[in-house]
């Protein structure tokens, strides 16, 4: 397995991605250290998902350089996929499979089908509180339960680097707390790196040790949550985010449509 070079899991240099006339990412310079829990914050359409797709080898950049765990994303995509896990933004589950069957499918896609895989499936479903429903078809799951299955599928092959795109957007508070703890434990005990795209500033503040705020394709602020709050002169991360990205609307404007 390829390891992070010089303790750096992700590095990008002047990374650009354009979809026709739309510039999704603009000269993005990023560095995420091994074992970091990096929170990638930004408004809708800022380029978070595009960045994740490029870094996980699913999308080709227009220009610039990116490496993941020391591997150039333009060259050896299969090696990157073998050591990373991706939780996509929207659930792409198979409605007619049970949770166990879906996880078997993901395991087999990653070349695993042995007893170890089945033990891991049972453990993960137990940790995520799905053990009682593991043989029910996924079509009957709530969106939160589906999200938990996806989280399990992302961690199944024990990746060194995990990309989580809005991991808690569909979860209730208790399920969010489980995912939060899972991330913290994995990061501390196994040195797994997390790259987390989220809108939830509270979640980012609790989980991430480094945060990058993306706006209009480029990183506009970077540091620990406290550093960002302090540099923006705000009370908390949400306030800091709104000051950096904008988005506060006065009460009069909110009623102007009436």
């Amino acid at each position, binding site marked *: 397995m390829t390891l992070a070079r010089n303790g750096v899991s992700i590095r990008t240099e002047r990374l650009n991605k354009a979809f026709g006339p739309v510039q999704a990412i603009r000269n993005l310079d990023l560095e995420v250290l091994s074992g970091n829990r990096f929170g990638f914050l930004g408004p809708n359409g800022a380029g978070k998902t595009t960045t994740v*797709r490029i870094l*996980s*080898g*699913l*999308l*080709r950049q227009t220009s610039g350089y990116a490496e993941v765990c020391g591997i150039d994303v333009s060259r050896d*995509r*299969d*090696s990157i*996929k*073998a050591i*990373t*896990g*991706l939780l*996509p*933004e*929207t*659930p*792409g*589950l*198979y*409605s*007619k*499979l*049970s949770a166990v*069957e*879906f996880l*078997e*499918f*993901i*395991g*087999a*896609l*990653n*070349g*695993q*089908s042995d007893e170890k895989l089945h033990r891991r499936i049972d453990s993960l479903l137990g940790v995520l509180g799905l053990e009682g429903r593991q*043989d*029910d*078809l996924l*079509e*009957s799951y709530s969106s939160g339960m589906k999200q938990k299955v996806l989280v399990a*599928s992302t961690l199944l092959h024990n990746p060194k680097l995990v990309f989580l795109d809005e991991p808690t957007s569909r979860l209730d508070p208790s399920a969010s707390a489980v995912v939060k703890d899972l991330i913290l434990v994995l990061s501390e005990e196994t040195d797994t790196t997390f790259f987390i795209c989220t809108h939830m500033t509270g979640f980012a503040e609790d989980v991430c040790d480094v945060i990058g705020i993306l706006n209009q394709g480029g990183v506009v602020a970077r540091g620990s949550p406290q550093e960002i709050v302090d540099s923006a002169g705000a009370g908390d991360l949400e306030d800091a985010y709104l000051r950096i990205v904008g988005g506060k609307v006065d009460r009069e404007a909110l009623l102007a449509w009436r």
Partner: protein
Amino acid sequence: MLGGEVMTGSWYHIAKAEFYVMTSGFRKHRAIGTVLLYTLATVWASYLAPMIIVGILEIIMPMDVMRTLLMVMFPGLMRTVILFLWALLLLYPLSYSLQEIKIGQWEIYLSNDVKTKDILAGTFLGKMPLYGLIVILVAPVLISPFMAAFEVPLLGQMLVYASLAFMVISTLWLANFLTSIIQARLGDSSRGNDIAKALSFVIALVVIIPMYGLMFFMPQLSELLGMDAFLIMPFTWPADLVSWIAITFNGIGLTGGQIIGFASILKFDIIQSAILTVTFGFLWVPIAIAAADRIFTIGAGARTESVTTVGRDNIILRGIRRVAKGPFGALTIVSLKDFGRKAQNLSKIFYGVVLAIILPIIIRQMSIIEGEIFVVDEILPMISIMIGIVGVFPFAGTGFLESKDQLWIIRSAPKGASRFMRARLATGFLMAVPLSGAPTIAMIIMFALPPLLAAQIFISAYIVVCGAVMIAMGATAQNPDYEDTKSPAHQTVLMTSMLLTEFTLLGPLFLDLFLTLGLGIDVLAVIESVLHVDGLWFMITIVGPSTLLFVGLAMMTLGIRSLGKVEV
């Protein structure tokens, strides 16, 4: 119904929204496009279609001969024509609507205090422009030969088209009503959508069988439809009404004896036929309006609440797991489970099996119609050519990926696309067994085939189905439609797969034709002299399927590459 302020004319806005959805393809030029389409359709119906159809028929046989022929078959043929239109109008909207359950839209209507009868009227009127256009295009093709043969004047033709218009409107109302009932029963759940899609294919089968009947059993069917039992069928009444109008307004001077002859076949007179047509048409209006409040209700039904828990793997899956150990076996089993649990996939397999069983019946019928002696041995090449379609249908476009997000998950695994495609292909090859076995068993029963010939037919059919499966899966992987059977991508994949399969099977014959005409080399004769076998048989049963396997492999390779590519 909800209380509060009642909106007026909601049906108009619903119909308008339906119309906007239907014409979204040319939304920038919606007004002019619609006017242009209807103008062209009117010109077609009133001038071009009668001229072209009658012109073509006169080339085939003189009008005098055709008139005599039509006089004999007229009532039965008219019933067949109207049956076709009726089935099209009743079942096509039903099948089309079931491909996309719209309960979510009902929730919006009801939360905005729209009356349920307005929903019914709005969705019905929204369908009218499209299906009206289809009827304007199709009806003249079917009706003009009769109008020309009986020299029906303008007034008579106007009455015929007015009767047809009434039948179209009343049938569409009934179709809309039935669609709403089925949608409400199924609900907007994953399972409801799946069952709805499955039903949409089975319904299509009900249209396909009469169409096969029209194509291959015309004389027998006309005779059959002349039977009294058909007087109770709703499509018979407008058909007989049209027949009576043509007879009453005929310009060829039908004698009293001839009219009595028609009356003895038609049984009901013009008044009775008109009353039955109008009564049946209007009967559904109060019934639908009275039932509207019960139909358009939102609530989790038994289906949406039920939870399916999977059990232990069955003997076949356990057998596969034992034979194919490792990730490939695991993926194949999961792939089989996913494919086999979707009602729409099973209905397509069922559809394919039914078509495969119909094949030998059609082949025998064709031989009888053409006056040939039916030779069982000659069935093999025909089966090879026709069963390709059976292999394509269940796998082209559907049973593949439910969403783009699934594709991201598959692509995020190393060589994920390749592993996924190989497992899907194994599923397809396993499903090819019943598709090839069904016609073989049907033929063994029908023609008492010797075992060797039965084995030959099965192997030959299996190879062709496998080739067709590879082509269909390869084409789908290159242009996935994510289970949207209404999408242009689905239609493209289906047509490409069908045409490529059939052209590949028949390709060697075309090659022989070109070589014979161009270079004077008769490949069939060469084969016969070298291999001492029938050249045509060899081409269709050996060369065609072999080429199909190569083309299938090429399509699969392209499909794997396309599915696993890095997006730009």
